């Protein structure tokens, strides 16, 4: 309700919001603080506390020191794996989705509604329904336990989202624009490059952020189709906490958790508006 005075009710509102916001930030603050405390310090007290001295060495250990199974290379190789899966899969699925969305919305062809309808079912089909077939297919084409296999999966599955996002954006473009260009003799790709792509800035950012966040954070496929040195960082984090279960290293683990979360958190901070737009665009499907 429009009211900018400082009545007691306003103070209550601010108090409530501030309390909830503090609760929402608490887990992040706790991990950041822990990542700067030594393992011994945490073992003496609780996970919640102020660092006595800033133990930056946790980050070095998390990045390239600690051991999972027999390899002691820290989280770095797994971060690299995640990047090598996420970046290509994001770019390819976004590009293909943009072209498909453009074709379905503005070009129209026989069977377009049918195929689009089936593709968008991918938004709902649980991953569990695809686990066994993917395992068999990846084994048959020799891509099981490879990063290429994960790129393939995320590209094909991501198409459901990227096509939907782009299609819903492109339907708002006036058809006359396309018709005029076609009369001038411009073909499918020329119209895409010259007319559609320059208009696509916002939706491409939304799609890229959505895909990057989802693929980076994905766990089930990573843990199912890869093992050991091929795992993405989400799967490696679980392996790490299992590996150190006997002698917990909470300081180093906290640093590892922060490092693993950093790429998507940064993207969220930089492109929050587009991130939220993706969330709500996915919702209104």
């Amino acid at each position: 309700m429009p009211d900018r005075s400082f009545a007691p009710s306003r103070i209550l509102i601010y108090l409530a919001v501030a309390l909830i916001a503090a609760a929402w930030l608490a887990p992040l603050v706790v991990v950041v603080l822990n990542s700067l405390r030594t393992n011994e310090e945490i073992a003496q007290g609780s996970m919640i506390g102020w660092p006595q001295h800033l133990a930056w060495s946790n980050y070095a250990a998390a990045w390239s020191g600690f051991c999972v199974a027999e390899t002691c290379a820290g989280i770095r190789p797994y971060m690299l794996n995640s990047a090598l899966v996420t970046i290509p899969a994001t770019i390819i699925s976004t590009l293909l989705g943009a072209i498909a969305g453009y074709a379905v919305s503005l070009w129209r062809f026989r069977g377009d509604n049918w195929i689009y309808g089936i593709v968008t079912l991918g938004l709902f089909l649980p991953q569990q329904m695809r686990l066994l077939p993917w395992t068999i297919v990846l084994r048959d084409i020799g891509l099981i336990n490879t990063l290429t296999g994960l790129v393939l999966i995320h590209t094909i599955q991501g198409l459901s989202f990227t096509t939907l996002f782009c299609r819903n954006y492109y339907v708002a473009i006036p058809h006359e624009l396309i018709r005029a260009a076609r009369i001038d003799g411009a073909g499918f790709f020329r119209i895409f490059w010259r007319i559609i792509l320059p208009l696509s800035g916002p939706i491409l950012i939304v799609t890229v952020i959505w895909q990057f966040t989802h693929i980076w954070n994905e766990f089930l496929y990573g843990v199912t189709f890869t093992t050991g040195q091929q795992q993405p960082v989400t799967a490696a984090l679980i392996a790490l906490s299992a590996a150190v279960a006997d002698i917990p290293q909470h300081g180093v683990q906290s640093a590892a958790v922060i490092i693993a979360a950093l790429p998507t958190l940064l993207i969220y901070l930089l492109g929050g508006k587009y991130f939220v737009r993706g969330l709500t665009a996915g919702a209104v499907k």
Partner: protein
Amino acid sequence: MSNAATMRPGRPALPEWVRRLPEYLMIWVPLLLSAAHLVSFSLWTIWISFTPSTLVPVAGWVGLRNYSAVAASRNWQIAFDNLLLFGSAFVLLSAATGLILAILLDQRIRGENVLRSIFLYPLAVSFVVTGTVWSWLLNPGLGIQKLIHDLGWTSFKFDWLIDRDMAIWTIVIAAIWQSSGFAMALFLAGLRSVDSDIIKAAQIDGAGPVRTYRRIILPSLWPITVTVVVIQLQFAISTFDLVRALTNGGPGIATQLPALVVYDLMFQRSLLGRGAAAAVLMLLILLAVLLPYAAWRYVQRRRAAHA
């Protein structure tokens, strides 16, 4: 645009379909791959669920035996009960939290953007990360309980994580924290789209803020509420990472959920037929939510089109 592309004299004209082959390929190959994998993989999993497959998929027909074996297993029964409890508690509480946050943020408060970012940031982080962090906070020997003990209140007890009866609520807490922001974003968009003239008219009629909310604003939000509930249910049904990182189904199998049962049957016990049956059961649960929703959406659209 020039006509040069179409009017190139002196070259034999290629047949139309050859000239347009690249575009056909770029359109159809990705779409067909996507559609084909969705349809064939679903049918494939359904087929495996009717076979006696264990370590590898084999042909054969066992009827509904895999289904009855899954349904009769303690693992699945606990998972299903947990899903009912977790699903309803999480969906109701996260929708309520989201609505409260949206109403609070809708009071023209300062720093709305910052606050919105705070409530939404968990959505940008993987469930593995947030589940791990919550497992520390909720661990009685490490987290909140330990802190309060160290502060001197030694009889304080908050050990749901290791309590068989309460452990499922730790997943509810973490899930609410992670995804209430999503409900908030949708509700806030809904609140902002309520016609301000109607609100002004109500205020001129002497309705206070509480009354305006109850009588005018909240009733107009119910289509958004349905959407929020359905999406959160969809999330609840397929929850896997969060539980894997937070409790790993434990203590014992107290926080088992269907997605964990599927994984366990397929990849830890190598009972592919049963794992596939459990996956199909998951799909059926999902359809029980989504089909009524789709029907409702269809009716709504028809009505909007006729209005």
